[in-house]
């Protein structure tokens, strides 16, 4: 007597169904899912629904970005900006150091040196305080993300 029972379609997990739908299964696993599909109309219905959804989402196309509207110009400007800043700061420091040296060693009267020095230090202190204030405001500025 044949005691072997007909093989029941094995359980197909939702993950296996997704992998089947997306072509991510090996031959053995695919065969396993196909056996499950052949035995279950519910599974077939689910697969048809997911297939339709997949196809509809893939149908959502966008016009590709044209060269004229490329973000490269903005990206390039941002990438090169730090180099510009570094050169500006280094150049300014060199000129200021040299200027200070020339001024300090020039044969003008000490009163002239003190007056000019006070003005220069005052301007630098005001500039530093404005920059500091702006940086502190930037942290809490609700409009910082608003584009001009």
């Amino acid at each position, binding site marked *: 007597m044949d005691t072997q029972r007909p093989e029941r379609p094995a359980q197909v997990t*939702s*993950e*296996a*169904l*997704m*992998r089947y739908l*997306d072509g*991510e299964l090996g031959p053995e696993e695919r065969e396993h899912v196909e056996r499950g599909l052949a035995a279950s109309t519910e599974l077939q219905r689910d697969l*048809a*629904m*997911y*297939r*339709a*959804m*997949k196809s*509809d*989402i*893939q*149908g*959502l*196309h*966008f*016009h*590709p*970005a044209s*060269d004229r509207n*490329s*973000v*490269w110009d*903005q*990206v*390039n400007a*941002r*990438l*090169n900006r730090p180099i510009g800043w570094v050169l500006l700061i280094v150049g300014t420091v060199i000129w200021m150091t040299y200027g200070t040296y020339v001024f300090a060693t020039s044969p003008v009267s000490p009163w002239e040196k003190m007056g000019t020095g006070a003005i220069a230090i005052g301007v630098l202190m005001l500039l530093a305080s404005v920059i500091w204030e702006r940086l502190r405001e930037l942290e809490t500025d609700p409009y910082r*993300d608003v*584009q001009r």
Partner: protein
Amino acid sequence: MELELIRKCKAGQSRFYEPLVRAYEPAGLRLAIAMMGNTDDAKDALQMAFIKTYDTLPRFDLRRAFGPWFFQILRNQCRDMLRSRKAKFNTEALDEQLENRPADAERGPERLQQRGAAKELLWRGLEQIGTEHREILVLKELEGFRYGEIAQILDIPEGTVASRLYHARSALKKALVDMNAEYP
């Protein structure tokens, strides 16, 4: 070719970055629009992602694929912007950007209208399912990434991708059914 460009960029030669930006821009913009919901925010995110990618290139392992790595940065940028700006995914701006396929036009205005309505419905469904579900559907269906690449971009185990996709697709189906759409 790509590897050579990346090597030169790693060495600080930013002019070699342009071909990479132009190559990844269309796909990047599609992903960003799908995540942000409008072109302006998508372009901002894309621009920042390219800058961040360049800044972190010195740490990039040349044995890895550049694409998934860039898309990971872009995806994180979009998520950060959605969080920090409290920006909301919004389909209103999408209507003009949806491209009608030539085949639709050939089948007459009624067909065109039907497809337009179906696409709008689908976008509204995508809007409702949330960023996490939306991003995995976009990576799979619009960008056509394999599970291994998606796992890399989302920084999750490869085994989790199928399960995430199942939940995303189920959520989209539920959203469409809730909108009284007969699906499929």
